């Protein structure tokens, strides 16, 4: 569904991404694991068109109509219209606006307007807590509720692929568990989810596949089951470093 190949990006002279390739299929959760500064956020931002990717990259999406659209070089707002929604690090919500306004702005892309009301019902079904807070200013809400608004707004654009950058950051363990549970439910509707997470244990528990990224390159990949039992992954991301084999 989402095909990325040979994507590179620079911050000044620093090469943040070096020829990264990956794919996400329908109804699949794919997690990207890696240390801080490995290029995870840059990768999502480059796919979403927020960060400029070097020429030669190929980013393609095939939506429900299975027509393939080439996205590299397109501006961020056009990529949303093509069916990729990013929930950025730090959520990127409109703090001064109400929950309802935030959610309805999610349906701003023309692709989402026809099903706006149905999608709003779907989002409020996923996050019942937002139902009673539709008129509240988002800035005054808790971190977990703001994350719900951010994910809800992304879903309002009726995406084919959802990109999530550290959605569990700053959430309580209970909120965190709830969040991963909801992501698993979102997958059932056929979306592809590409997830960047620090929380390797919980994300691998719901993911189908994963990639390991280091210094801007993909250094490993496999099914979630295989990654969970991989000694290198366990050492680096699952806190098994102290255990001697």
């Amino acid at each position, binding site marked *: 569904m989402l095909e990325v190949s040979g994507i590179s990006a620079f911050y000044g002279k620093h090469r943040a991404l070096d020829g990264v390739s990956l794919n996400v299929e329908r109804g699949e959760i794919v997690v990207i694991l890696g240390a801080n500064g490995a290029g995870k956020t840059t990768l999502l931002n480059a796919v979403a068109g927020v960060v400029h990717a070097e020429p030669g990259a190929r980013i393609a999406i095939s939506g429900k109509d299975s027509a393939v659209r080439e996205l590299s070089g397109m501006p961020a707002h056009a990529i949303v219209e093509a069916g990729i929604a990013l929930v950025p690090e730090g959520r990127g919500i409109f703090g001064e*606006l109400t929950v309802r306004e935030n959610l309805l702005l999610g349906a701003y892309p023309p692709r989402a307007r026809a099903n706006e009301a149905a999608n709003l019902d779907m989002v409020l079904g996923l996050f019942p807590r937002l139902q009673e807070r539709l008129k509240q200013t988002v800035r005054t809400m808790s971190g977990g509720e703001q994350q719900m608004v951010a994910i809800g707004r992304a879903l309002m654009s009726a995406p084919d692929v959802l990109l999530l950058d550290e959605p569990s950051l700053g959430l309580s363990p209970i909120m965190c568990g709830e969040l991963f549970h909801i992501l698993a439910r979102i997958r059932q509707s056929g979306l592809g989810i590409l997830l960047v997470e620090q929380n390797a244990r919980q994300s691998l528990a719901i993911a189908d596949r994963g990639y390991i990224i280091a210094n801007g390159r993909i250094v490993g990949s496999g099914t979630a089951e295989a990654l969970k039992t991989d000694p290198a992954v366990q050492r680096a991301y699952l806190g098994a470093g102290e255990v001697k084999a």
Partner: protein
Amino acid sequence: MTLTLDILLSGLVLGGMYALIALGLTLQYGIARIINLSYGEFLIAAAFGALFLYTGMAVNPILGMIVVVPAAFVSNWLLYQVVLMPLVRRAKNQGMLEVDSILGTFGVLFVIQGVMLVTFGGSLQSYSYLSVPVYILGTTLALNRILALVFALIIGGVLYLFLTRTRYGTALRAVAVNPAAAQLTGIDIRAASALAFATGGAIVGAGGVLISMFLTFSAAMGVVFTMKALIVVIMGGIGNMLGALIAGVLLGISETAVARLVDPGLTIAVTYALFLGVLLWRPTGLFGRPAR
């Protein structure tokens, strides 16, 4: 008593004009992130447009707005696309765009002012339209002032409804609040900025027509209105429409009171004293939130 009422009514009309033109500047600065020093020139240009239409072609100013306001919209849209877009493209952050736009529009100010001086000369201009007294609670107010206030209220009200009740208006507010996130909801920020800048220009054009109905003006007066609009925007709290409304009315009434009771030459001094006072008391404006 009559004098007090007289000052309040005249001050309200003037303040309504200040609030209206501050709304336009809020759109240009809050959404397009351009500090437009040539803002007041469009007000004067619109005033000359109304004068020309009324004295030259016998088109009354209210009807004249049908021509002048779209012209102001289009010329501001072109100003943004042609002159300011290169600055937007090269700006690495908001601060850089603000500094560049101050310098760029400072130049535009002199171009427009120069053209107006050559075309219309530097003398004070005015025309008489509906300057008949209307009796209100024992005092009088010219009909053209009442009409100006009514139209300012209508334009402000329509703008408010547009920004809060429509999809495109909400999108503009989203760009003002968080431009980085706005593009992630599929909003084309540059198109939205151009629209906001042009709408701000249309509002100052309408303001120019309304003000020309009861104030004398000259080709060199644009900068006065730019400064007053900036002061009202900053006093009200940047990006706050209600704040701009109250600050505008406050400024209008203070200026009128001092002009009537003390000396008309002191109005500019009052403007800046009020401005300074508000900023010392509340650095982010009457309704501005403290900086994080």
